[in-house]
């Protein structure tokens, strides 16, 4: 049910899709983390998520929680610990600002 609704939402609202996949000039904090000056919101999310996986930052007791290292803190508002569920929103924060 949802996928159809979503497909419709995407086709109805191309802007939403654009703000997910369009390349954006990054603020300096993100630039350091990504090693790129431009990326899309989706690309940024994938990078952060793979960084978490590569460095085993998920809490061993509760996989839903990520213990941020210094580098990750720079992009995620300096929080020492975040929930995985928040991740897309936290990444989005950088981008909604950029688009304004």
């Amino acid at each position: 049910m949802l996928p159809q609704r979503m497909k419709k939402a995407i086709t109805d609202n191309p802007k939403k899709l654009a703000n997910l996949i369009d390349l954006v000039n990054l603020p300096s904090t993100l630039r350091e983390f990504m090693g790129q000056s431009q990326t899309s919101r989706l690309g940024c999310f994938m990078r952060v998520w793979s960084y978490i996986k590569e460095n085993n930052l998920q809490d061993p007791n509760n996989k839903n929680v990520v213990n941020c290292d210094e580098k990750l803190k720079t992009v995620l508002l300096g929080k020492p610990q975040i929930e995985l569920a928040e991740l897309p929103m936290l990444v989005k924060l950088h981008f909604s600002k950029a688009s304004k």
Partner: protein
Amino acid sequence: MGKIPPSFKGSQFPKSTLLKTPQSPSQTPLLTQKPQHFLKKIPNKRPSKSQPTPHPPPPPPSLTFTTPLLSDAKSLFNSLITATTTNKHTIPSDPRFFNSILQSYSAISSPHDSISLLNHMIKTHPPFCPNKSTFHIFLSQSCKSPDPTLSTVHQALNLMTSHGFPPDKIAADIAVRSLCSADRAEHAIELIKELSLKNCSPDTYTYNFLTKYLCKNRTVSAVNGFIRDMREFCNIKPNLVTYTIMIDNVCNGKNLREATRLLGVLAEEGFKPDCYVYNTIMKGHCMLSQGGEVLSVFKKMQEDGVEPDMVTYNTLIYGLSKAGRVKQAKSFLNVMAEMGHFPDAVTYTSLMNGMCREGNAVGAMALLEEMEAKGCSPNSCSYNTLLHGLSKERLLDKAIELFGLMKAGGMELETGSYGTFLRALCKKGKVAEAYEVFDYAVESKSLNEVAAYTTLETTLKWLLKAKEQGLVV
């Protein structure tokens, strides 16, 4: 065979891929014709390059043209001739060798240039005598060239006539197919009308090919107009295959009224509906979830003494399951086995689909075991159906177990089951697992990143909101 519909909700999947099975009957009659076409075509259009090898020192197998320039092509051909004569190689006398040269040149040049090259070849190498296939190369090339009129096609046909090959059925077939592949169906119809005035009407294969093309790409009224025109101008009547194609087309568009009309016309013409026609009609009713109608078509079939085939049973079981008559559908499992058609993965998946719709995912799991016990291995559709069903009923442990099996088998996830599974996981607070599923969906290329991520993002957004409101732990 097919895939599992993205969702179980009746109206949600107008073009269920499961329906591919029922569709196949109408294609089968066409398939049986096709080989004939290929038999005609292969010698024409694909002059085999390996043919020259029997000659002691193998001559250069073919020329490769890098530019569409005529002068370059000519000099390339000249160098081939001189090289072989100085080395005392023999150029194969087989016209197929020359045809292959022309074929490869025509792929990159304009029709006019290819004809010039042909003239040049005849002049510089008189032993070469163009045959029918040579002209078929030009014909198909001229049909594919962008041209608002049919003049280049006429040119090619005139060239054929002047070389002693007046257009025949094969030429008509090649022209129609090439024109259709260039999306010039209107021109194809025009050409057929012209040719039939010259006493060269297309054969039934060409006719059915064109009908099928029109069905796929034009409106129903355009198809009916074409059939009428053909009857009036060319005196070609549709046969049973034509009707099957047309019925299939209107059934896909859920236009059952037109399908019924066609059935009437078909009977008036003195045709007796065969298994394929019935399967197609049955599929139409399946699309509208008309379980009773599906059954009555099956009964009518038996009354008319038409032997149901595997596709009939699969359609029947699919239709009944979809309409919520799983019990009845299940009873046909034995019937079909008695008739010598053993239920396959499609049959079982249809049934599982029906059970999941009823909210009986546990029963569907039992059916999976039963099917495996009978030596029928489930495909990715079966697993996706089950995953969807289990997730929907929040039988999460079983769903996770099933997902493990799918992962081990490298099976693709479908949008529907992916979304439902993801939501079920998040609902139980298994966000990390949801991320794993997301990773798998992207890795296995079941979904593209954007679709997979959008679903994940929406689900997590919903989860945070629900948490705020204290709805989820």
